[in-house]
């Protein structure tokens, strides 16, 4: 049986493009952490007049899909304006790679998030951002769309695993329709905490399982 990775994924995994650091980068971002098992750093050089990404590099600590997605998003983003690059989705990256296995969506979304975070970092440094968005129930729901249900490889909002979201005095409570001893429960809790815990107005993230 062949690996569940496409030929393109394996090719990018073997020979990742645009690897490394840009020492005098105009913006950079790191998504993920050694704890969650995957980490991507994205570095940008941006033309200050046209806002075109003139150079982009990435580094990856992660599995094959993480490395391949990091590689492909650098190819997709190079030469685009920040506004255009912001629109690059995981779907687009996945298509360009000839598809990714559902269980690996989590690791590959990270690279897309890394690109967006680097763009946001540039916008913040260059006075291009609007007001900081407060963490509301709607905001949490939006973020949870980046948390994958590894069983099917679609996000937990779309697969209706999110039963309840509550935001009160900086405490975010998320209830998932999943038994507490489900094989993916600890991985999903960690992922949700990771996505929301660092927010400026969030003190605590509580993930409950009621399945």
């Amino acid at each position, binding site marked *: 049986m062949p690996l569940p990775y496409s030929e393109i994924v394996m090719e990018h995994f073997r020979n990742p493009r645009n*690897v490394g650091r840009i020492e005098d980068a105009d913006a950079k971002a790191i998504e993920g952490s050694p704890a969650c098992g995957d980490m991507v750093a994205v570095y940008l050089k941006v033309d200050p007049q046209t806002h075109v990404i003139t150079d982009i590099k990435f580094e990856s*600590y992660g*599995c094959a899909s993480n490395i391949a997605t990091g590689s492909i998003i650098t190819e997709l983003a190079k030469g685009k304006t920040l506004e255009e690059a912001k629109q690059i989705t995981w779907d687009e990256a996945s298509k360009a790679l000839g598809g990714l296995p559902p269980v690996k969506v989590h690791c590959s979304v990270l690279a897309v998030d890394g690109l967006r975070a680097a763009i946001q970092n540039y916008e913040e440094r260059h006075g291009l951002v609007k007001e900081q968005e407060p963490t509301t129930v709607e905001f949490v729901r939006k973020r949870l769309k980046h948390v994958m249900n590894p069983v099917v490889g679609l996000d937990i909002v779309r697969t209706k695993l999110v039963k309840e979201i509550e935001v009160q005095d900086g405490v975010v409570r998320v209830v998932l329709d999943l038994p507490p001893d489900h*094989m993916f429960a600890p*991985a999903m809790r960690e992922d949700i905490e990771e996505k929301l815990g660092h927010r400026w107005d969030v003190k605590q993230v509580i993930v409950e399982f009621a399945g």
Partner: protein
Amino acid sequence: MYENLVYLDNAAATRLDERVLEAMKPYFFDVYAVATSQFGYSIGLDAREALDTARARIAAVLGASPDEFIFTSGDTESSNLAIKGVALALAEKKGRHIITSPIEDFPVLHSVRALERQGFRATYVRVDETGRVDLDHLRESITPETVLVSIQTANQEIGTLQDIRAIGEICREKGVLFHTDATHAFTRVPLDVREIPVDLVTVSAHTIHGPKGIGGLYIRKGTPVRKVLDGGFQEFDLRPGLENIPGAVGFATAVELVTPEETARLQKMRDRLLERLLNEIPHTRLNGHPVHRLPHNANVSFRFVEGESLLLHLDMRGFAVSTGSACFSRSLEASHVILGIGGDHERAHGSVRFTFGRYNKEEDVDRVVEAIAEVVRELRRISPLGKE
């Protein structure tokens, strides 16, 4: 198809030895009948004799008498029967408390969790950073309600050997039954139930070049065990189901083919591998105990790299190893063993297990070291970690 593969995952599964297959063949094609009662037809009596002989051969290696050893489908079933069987037999009479360690393999760990869901209380006895059980903590954890202590002989990932003699003596002294999962240790390290005070021992053929789908459980005479599968009266009325006679014969043959000389050869390869990896690749550490470990197991963490990537690169170069990385596991969880001995997620993600077997050659060691050195160097080049 895989003649050039260097297979270093012998703890997961092993290549069958041809001599084992030859011993099994007659029981597929010639003596294929069910093992009948002593009043059955001839072919069934021959099957019965083969089963009983296989049982006696394995029991002898364990120092047990033949009626203390039953065949199962493998270590998962053996440990389920040992733990649930004893717990159910003693719940009413003695209590609902069970003791194990946090680094046991899943058959033990999940059997204990299943009992917890049914109202049992479990204590996970502390282990040190090498994976050895804290004997004082074990002693003070035993209560009058404790029905069983289940501590493995050797760890499936990091290879750490427990002092099962001392553990058995503590259990004896406190009047508690002791089960050990010896799946990875059986025949590679000495284990004689006449010398070690142990009541139940899980073993399996798949780790010693025997067939998959056959294992066994040693049950000391008089140990209360309630059967967990319902069916016929096979295996002393403890394990119903048609007996796997070719498997049993294969298992007995595989047990006898392991020699101390062979194990010493595997250990020599393992020692050379560890020495080279730890000395030649920077930011590398041994997981498990430097001395008290399985002779054919090495487990090493490479910092700043993730195990699945490492494993795939090695696969492309013709080497099969295993990793404790979350990305590689079916549950997307990092190795509970590395985390259980106080390691962090990064150490688990970068951990690689090498387990040697009969078909490894001395020259494989240097080839795998060179491949790993190259892959680790390449993955560190693209990693955001470890640059400062």
